[in-house]
């Protein structure tokens, strides 16, 4: 997938880092807590009543309880508390922006201490060190119902696991060749080390009653109409499959590609040295993907990485913490500038980009008329993901009510079609957070279960 960069040298050829350094550049960004550190940190938790951190957790993990269990050295108990609310608690511990969720609301942020309990790292400690004989959750007696789940990302996996727990049979249809969704393909490599995404899915599937069929893409070799007919219920956890376009000429020039495509390759490679590296590169965007892209390119050995955003720092969706990571890796950040023209060399390859300076006027972003150029060997666009409209092209899928481009759902994650539910990034209330996708999947599973049970009673 890095073919647009085939003309660029590899990390090994660029030679900024020797193989060992390269490997350590992509090891754990935040090393896990030692047992002792976890014991000390867990003692800092005040065991709040109606704790603000729980209210801030999209997946409603009982944080004070699991931390108390850690402090009593009851690691399996802590892990079970986490996993019963969030079966992907291990990956959420790694990728959650805790600084704007649980840790931001920790009461220890107040006054003199100004330092929250390290909830994310404690959650990781519990899920890293749990040791169960078999799967911690048992399946209810079989209901004889069979549910189709589209997408083996966090939303789909969470939904499938909960459905299996409730006694249903689940078939997952996944477009890629591996499960995990963004955990497997989209998150920065140093946030998800040691093949954790795969191991976590393996653990999740241990509950039984779930099968996954790979290479099954809705709108390509899979139709919602068929699933709707063949299964008792359908859950759509499609994600946002399409990278947005800049809308400039030369967008298909060698040297320009979506950041998510590069990260996907980076996540899958066994040989970091073989990855194409742009010594000078530009990343366009202001989200966590832009930060991940810029930071990883710097860690691969690029000497000049510039992140450009059309608005001010305060409007960036990447958290302060993420921005600090980028800065610490030498990423230069330019704000109030938008892409104006892709500059090409004589062979038609990316040579840089011209930017138009912007400002906000009466709430509207406008170009000031001033421009500037940045020379670069590659441009990575991380300006957001859009809905892959092809996925909902069959006759039944086309009937789904939409809210903007995303799928419209009610509070129960129910779409406008009977027996069809959806969750995660593909639905309107989505916040593009793994933890929220997990919650959607879990809630949808309960909604599906209730609906199926009601049907049973009526029959």
């Amino acid at each position, binding site marked *: 997938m890095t073919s647009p960069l085939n003309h660029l040298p590899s990390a090994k050829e660029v030679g900024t880092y020797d193989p060992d350094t390269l490997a350590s550049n992509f090891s754990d960004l935040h090393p896990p807590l030692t047992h002792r550190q976890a*014991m*000390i940190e867990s*003692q800092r938790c*005040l*065991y*709040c*009543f*109606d*704790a*603000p951190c729980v209210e801030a957790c999209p997946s409603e993990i009982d944080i004070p309880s699991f931390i108390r269990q850690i*402090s009593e050295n009851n690691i399996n108990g802590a892990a079970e508390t986490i996993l019963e609310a969030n079966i992907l608690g291990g990956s959420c511990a790694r990728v959650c922006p805790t600084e704007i969720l649980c840790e931001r609301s920790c*009461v*220890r942020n*107040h*006054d003199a201490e100004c330092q929250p309990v390290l909830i994310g790292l404690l959650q990781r400690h519990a899920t890293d060190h749990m040791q169960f004989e078999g799967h911690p959750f048992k399946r209810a007696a079989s209901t004889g119902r069979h549910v189709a789940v589209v997408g083996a990302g966090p939303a789909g996996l969470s939904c499938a696991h909960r459905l299996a727990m409730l006694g249903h049979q689940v078939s997952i249809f996944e477009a890629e060749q591996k499960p995990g969704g963004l955990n497997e393909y989209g998150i920065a490599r140093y946030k998800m080390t040691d093949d954790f995404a795969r191991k976590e899915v393996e653990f999740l599937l241990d509950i039984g009653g779930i099968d996954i069929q790979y290479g099954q893409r809705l709108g390509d070799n899979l139709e919602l109409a068929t699933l709707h007919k063949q299964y008792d219920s359908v859950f759509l956890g499609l994600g946002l499959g399409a990278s947005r376009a800049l809308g400039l000429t030369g967008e298909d020039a060698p040297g320009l590609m979506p950041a998510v495509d590069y990260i996907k390759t980076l996540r899958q490679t066994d040989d970091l040295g073989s990855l194409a590296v742009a010594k000078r590169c530009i990343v366009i965007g202001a989200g966590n993907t832009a930060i991940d892209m810029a930071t990883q390119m710097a860690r691969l050995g690029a000497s000049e990485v510039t992140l450009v955003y059309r608005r001010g720092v305060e409007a960036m969706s990447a958290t302060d913490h993420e921005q600090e990571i980028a800065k610490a890796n030498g990423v230069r950040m330019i704000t109030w500038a938008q892409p104006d023209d892709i500059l090409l060399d004589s062979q038609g390859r990316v040579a840089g980009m011209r930017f138009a300076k912007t400002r906000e006027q009466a709430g509207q972003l406008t170009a000031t008329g001033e421009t500037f150029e940045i020379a670069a060997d590659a441009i990575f666009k991380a300006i957001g993901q859009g809905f892959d409209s092809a996925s909902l092209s069959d006759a039944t899928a086309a009937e789904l009510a939409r809210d903007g481009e995303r799928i419209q759902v009610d509070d129960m994650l129910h779409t406008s079609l009977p027996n069809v539910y959806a969750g995660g990034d593909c639905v309107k209330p989505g916040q593009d957070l793994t933890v929220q996708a997990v919650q959607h999947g879990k809630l949808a599973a309960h909604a599906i279960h209730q609906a199926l049970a009601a049907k049973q009673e009526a029959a």
Partner: protein
Amino acid sequence: MKTSPSTPLSFPGKKNSGDSVVNGVDLSVNFAGIKAPNPFWLASAPPTDKAYNVVRAYEAGWGGVVWKTLGEEPPAVNVSSRYSAHYGKNREVIGFNNIELITDRSLEINLKEITQVKKDWPDRALIVSIMVPCNEEAWAYILPLVEATGADGIELNLGCPHGMPERGMGAAVGQNPDLIEKVTYWCKKHYSKPVIVKLTPNITDIRVGAQAALRGGADAVSLINTINSITSIDLDNMVAKPTVGHQSTHGGYCGSAVKPIAMNMVAEIARDPATPTLPISGIGGISCWRDAAEFIALGAGSVQVCTAAMLNGFRIVEEMKDGLSRWMAEKGYDSIEAFSRKAIPQTTDWKHLDINFKTIAQIDQDLCIECGRCYIACEDTSHQSIAKLTEQDGTRRYEVIEEECVGCNLCQITCPVENCITMVPQETGQPFLAWDNDPRNPFRVAS
């Protein structure tokens, strides 16, 4: 092994010196005739087992030492695996337990070392702890030997709760007031210097032991000895700690956890009309200057420390002296005596408390971190007198329902923020009324 003292690195003004004046305050004590440059003594225990340790303690600045208990020949034999602890969550030692016996070194060596140390350190208190069988001959034999060392006094170990009682000594004597009196009497008869009787807390009324000691002629009492204890069980092997082979036994409990028990017992004796002036050496969980000041305020004339030194080394005495002297200077106390027993008049029986006193909780909303601990504690286990409110912006607000609050202090205790919850005495307009005189008391005393 090194037994001779190294050169004392003592000079005026040095923190670990034996100077009685620290930060301009005189810390010296004259405890039942035993003089020491400060009230901080090491209790009879492993840290005072031999000259090497005792000299290090004096070098560090301790005002006195009670030498680990001497006994009859042949010396006691100890087991391997002797201590265990009751831990807090962060591995801080809350309580400490030991099954060690009295000295396992020969009487001759101990006496020789005591003689030398006293000679080298004349300004420091050196008291010898003794435990021999309950017959006059045994005491008549050992006391002249101890007297000959030049030590300042003796402390009778009538409280050791483990091992020795099985041999009819230690707590077996201390739990019998008649024996306390008798042994004390023998000691006064065969020894000319001050006799301190160390009391065991493993009884129902500590005053009985103190009164018996006084009847026997004791110059002072010291308390508490350790409390019978089992600190923890190894749940894999179903055996208590410390584990000796595959077994265990109860030990003696000490350390911070016993301080409240010890302080009550000290106060009981200090306010007992039968022992109003009996000097008390306070022992039990003293680990900082504040603990020492509290014991002294309740009637202690000196304090003895063991566990805190065993966990941290002798250097802790520096902070104890420094902190105590600074506090005394701040309060205008120019000697230990000046605040000794100061808290006793205010320590009384329940029946004398003012039944009309009323205090209620007040929450400082600026300091509140909204953890909800006060709310759930009051709601679940007390008087439902804290309301949980939600502000428009979603922040929580906890308010005391004053009519419901009985002033129990629980919310203040569970609040993690210092000074966030204060208990505020209320103006009730009602006179002082003790339960003795309360009309609601069916057994009231007419006032």
